[in-house]
């Protein structure tokens, strides 16, 4: 009985994390208007009951700004992680099935991208794409696929030698059908876990690139923008401007990491009971 209960509590944690993240995303979209609203009658308020996260130097509600920023981060994270994971899947499969030459090319690309520090690469691509939403998404998506691509390449190479794949090939099944029917199903757990574990990286890099001024433009309520602006007010004692948005970002990242970890536990047959 303990085993089913454990599995159920894992499932419950997963659902809880998904619900919280979805709630933040929706709330952020709905509060986008309020986050922009400035009112100089209530500027620089300490956290209180009416404004739990306080207000900033333009009298904007920090709770609304934080939620809108997180929501934007989560949406960017989802998009970039999905694009990145798909690139990884395609590259991994190409590298492992298209022969030695394709493998060397893909491995060279992986080494190349991995060799440059992430944050530098994200900044360069973002600048090249004209900063803003497009720049950040392209930058993060093009720099995060490498490690997952390696995992998938290794997995496909192992699968290729599996007797049931060899047997299917002897029965004249075409290469593409083998990839579709036999390999993709086996790659799903790795792929999904990799995808979810990409979120925290994507979100953090989006925030840091924006913080450094190479990402989203400053009128958007992004977490990176909030943090970089509040830096200037920290020294004058307005600690709440950076503290609450920062903590919220860490919590969202932890939630995603927890989600990925639990989903891996659920999908991996070796640990399905935990």
């Amino acid at each position: 009985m303990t085993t089913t209960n454990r599995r159920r509590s894992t499932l419950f944690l997963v659902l809880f994390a998904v619900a919280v993240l979805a709630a933040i995303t929706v709330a952020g979209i709905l509060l986008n208007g309020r986050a922009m609203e400035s009112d100089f009658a209530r500027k620089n308020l300490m956290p209180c009951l009416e404004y739990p996260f306080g207000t900033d130097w333009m009298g904007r509600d920090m709770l609304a700004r934080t939620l809108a920023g997180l929501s934007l981060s989560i949406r960017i994270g989802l998009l970039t992680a999905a694009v990145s994971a798909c690139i990884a899947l395609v590259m991994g499969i190409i590298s492992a099935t298209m022969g030695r030459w394709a493998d060397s090319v893909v491995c060279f690309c992986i080494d190349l991208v991995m060799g440059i520090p992430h944050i530098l690469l994200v900044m360069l691509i973002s600048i090249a794409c004209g900063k803003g939403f497009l720049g950040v998404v392209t930058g993060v998506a093009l720099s995060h696929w490498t490690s997952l691509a390696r995992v998938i390449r290794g997995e496909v190479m192992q699968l290729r030698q599996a007797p049931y794949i060899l047997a299917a090939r002897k029965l004249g099944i075409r290469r593409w059908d083998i990839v579709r029917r036999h390999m993709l199903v086996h790659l799903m757990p790795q792929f999904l876990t990799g995808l979810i574990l990409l979120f925290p990286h994507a979100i953090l890099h989006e925030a840091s690139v924006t913080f450094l001024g190479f990402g989203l433009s400053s009128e958007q309520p992004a977490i990176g923008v909030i943090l970089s602006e509040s830096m200037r007010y920290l020294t004058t004692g307005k600690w709440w401007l950076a503290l609450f948005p920062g903590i919220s970002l860490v919590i969202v990242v932890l939630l995603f990491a927890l989600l990925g970890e639990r989903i891996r536990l659920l999908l991996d047959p070796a640990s399905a009971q935990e």
Partner: protein
Amino acid sequence: MTMTLQANNVTFTYRGRHGAPVLQNISLTIQSGERVGLKAPSGRGKTTLCRLLAGYERPQSGQVLLDGKPVCGMRGVCPVQMMWQHPETVVDPLLRLGVTLSESGPVDRRLLEELHIEDGWMERFPAELSGGELQRFCLARALNPATRFLLCDEISAMLDLVTQAQIWSFLIREAERRDLGLLIVSHSDSLLEQVCTRIETLPV
């Protein structure tokens, strides 16, 4: 029409085992209609020879020919099919057995009945069948209409005697009906004497 499966002076070394070939200058010929027994102590390359004959591996020297054409590069359903020692590794654990079986095209009803394969199995996953049931299943899949040679690598070692007898009597009947060539690898001398028309031993 008689066909010939032939290994000519094949030498094979597994990658990473430098200088220690598993097989050295081995030749073996099987005609269709023949049932050739193969015996050798463990680790002398019986399975490796099967893998070479079925075209899973390429020999470093020598050739494996089916009617004069190399087996390795054949397209479509290979006329040489191999039965593996462990059936549970040869079926995709995440696919229903019906899907796996359909890879061999529509399978003859008579074949399924003679192998006692029940319809209900098609909806199941490999983990839900026993080794013997899976082995019969693999046999049905390997007996594609295009198959002319069947290499049986210890296919009955883990079965009970009744199932062994059923499988072998079925295989002999089927081989005679379709004029198949069989290569039978086994450690059991009595089995080989009972089933085979000719017995070969791998040189030490």
